[in-house]
């Protein structure tokens, strides 16, 4: 700790902001990679990496803004979203024995163009949170609107992925990545929510993955397929 405090750039908030923005950009790149990636296992790993980056962003914000409670959220993110959830999902893939490629409804090039468009929308929305004329902002909002824009893009692209995919498991992944966007927004807007809420949200995410995992398994067993477009007996 003492050693770290003597290194100049680790004390420089401007440098910190750049590092955080850079990592946020990587989060967005990974999200778009998920849209383009057709292999299910790779998708799960990209999600794990993305969660890991999120944890790194959280830790960086905690360090540069001296907000120690965010470290706990960072650790929880690594444990649950970067390690536990990918392991659970990969085991599920093994058990249902499906290694088919993801078959998106809109083809890959067009999907990526749409994701780009959603990123533009996100920047427009994030703009309304940015008031440079109000003088140098203090506190959480000072992080600039780049990170927030990335968060909103991840959220919107997650939505798009949910609509664009037919297989049950890939929809679960889309839902999880959408949640990553919300986590990023919470971290960069307000340094995360109060700890008890953060813990509750992590608990819910974990239970949701378990519940959805069991459902995916049952659907696979009963219908002999994970294609949710086959779930259409209930109408009207």
């Amino acid at each position, binding site marked *: 700790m003492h050693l770290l405090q003597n290194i100049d750039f680790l004390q420089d908030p401007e440098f910190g902001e750049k590092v955080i923005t850079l990592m946020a950009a990587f989060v967005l790149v990974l999200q778009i990679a998920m849209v383009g990636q057709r292999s299910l296992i790779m998708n799960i790993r990209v999600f794990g990496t993305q969660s890991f980056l999120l944890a790194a962003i959280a830790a960086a914000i905690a360090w540069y803004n001296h907000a120690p409670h965010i470290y706990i959220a960072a650790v929880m993110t690594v444990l649950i979203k970067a390690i536990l959830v990918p392991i659970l999902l990969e085991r599920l893939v093994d058990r249902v024995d499906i290694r088919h490629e993801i078959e998106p409804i809109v083809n890959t090039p067009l999907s990526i163009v749409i994701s780009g468009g959603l990123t533009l929308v996100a920047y427009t*929305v994030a703009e*309304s*949170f940015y008031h440079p004329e109000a003088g140098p902002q203090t*506190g*959480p*909002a000072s992080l600039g609107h780049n990170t927030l824009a990335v968060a909103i893009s991840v*959220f919107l692209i997650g*939505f798009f992925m*949910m609509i664009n995919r037919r297989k*049950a498991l890939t*929809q679960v992944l889309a*839902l999880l990545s*959408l*949640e990553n966007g*919300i986590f990023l*927004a*919470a971290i960069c*807007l*307000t*340094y995360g*929510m*109060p*700890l*008890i*809420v953060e813990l*509750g*949200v992590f*608990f*819910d995410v974990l*239970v*949701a993955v378990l*519940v*959805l995992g*069991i*459902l995916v398994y*049952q*659907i696979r067993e*009963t*219908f002999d397929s994970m294609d*949710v477009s086959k*779930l*259409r*007996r*209930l109408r*009207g």
Partner: protein
Amino acid sequence: MILLILLLVPFVGLVGQPLSSVNPAARRTMETANLAAFGITFVLSLVLAAQVLASGPVSLWSGFLYADSLSALVCLLTASVALVCSVYAVGYLREDERSGAFDQEGDTAAAKLRKYYSLTPLFVFAMLLVALANNLGLMWVAIEGTTLASVFLVTFYGKRTSLEAAWKYAMIGGVGLAMALFGTVLAYYAGHRLPASDTIGGLNWSVLAGHAASLDKTTMRLAFILALLGYGTKAGLAPMHTWKPDAYSEAPVPAAAILSSAMLNCALYGLIRFYILTSRCLGPQFPGGLLLIFGMLSMGISVPFILVQRNFRRLLAYHTIDHAGIMVTALGVGGKLASLALMLHMTYHTVAKSLLFLCAGNVSQHFKTDLFDKVKGGVIRVMPVTGAVFLMAMLAIIGMPPFSLFQSEFLILRAAFAGGHYLATALFVLFGTGIFAGALLHVGSLVLGPSDEAPVAVLRPWRDYSMLTLAVVLVVIGFWLPVPLLDLIRGAARVVTGD
């Protein structure tokens, strides 16, 4: 202290779970535990309501748990429905076991019983937490918890259609609640300039509501839109309503009754809390207008589906969508009269809708189908008690005058007209007429008419007495509301208007 005990009591229902095969003693333990848990929950929610009436809002751990009249009302309604449904469930599940409905697909009978009796306490716990959590984030966690606890109630029978229903329920609910979480994050951000906003109390509703005028307006606008979409999905507002008919028609009837009344209240409760914050921050026009649009849309969409419906449990589900629309409309109209009407309607709807589901459960257990054409009418001759109550409850819910829902709907209309929402009033009447005709036609032909089947003479005590109790309550509140309950409803309406 009462808040904590009230939250923990449902866990009593988890006692006596280990059960490998259905043996009568073990089943009786589970039933007793379930009944005891919800019985105590009901008594405690009465005590809480009395305390709130006597001395104002109750809070625990410096405002971590908090109950004003609105929370107390929602708790009381949740606890009453849970109690009635737990009594009904005893008879319903025994009947299912006898008729062999358990043996078809999926888990064994013992596993199904265990599933029902362990998930309902968790479900009720989550719903009570929604009403008692002061922290908006924790409230979100609890609402998500209600979805997670009830997904496997929807897959209860393990049929293909129940899996489909559960998948839609979990995914649509999950996406919706993700939006609500984003809305909650933004609400927290809107208050980040308030003093002590970074402490644990920074997301407490009572704190935010106290400083609502100084919340960041742009952020709060976006937060409300997201919360409306999110909690609206959970309440089944159109166009996010598609999970509702599926989930309600696949879940076992007592669980469907809880979903359609108590859980709807919880989702609306979340929406009401956000509405109060937003209307104090931005004025009532902005949130009110949005709510009116969603209310009209929900009422309008349910009309054609009710008119052509072939399955009576799905008919009830579209009715719930309609009533969610009515309540959201009342919230959108705003003001003293509409808020009072909203709380009255919430109370009346809870009683009538859960009663309807119990009746539908009796019919579908006897005829082994949910379809109108297969029952072929004449329910009132085959099952005189159920048939009569079914018809009465249907008349009540479509707003026939002697019953209570007429009063509340009339009040909403009056408030909407006085508030100058002429288009909304006209549409309200129009849609109301369509639903009136459709529902009455369907249920009339289901209940009335001749039947070749021999009447069922025996009364099934658990099922029929719980249904009759609720029927008596429905009739009585049409003419006379106990003064303390009316005070509680008035108090809840005052929470919405903020005076």
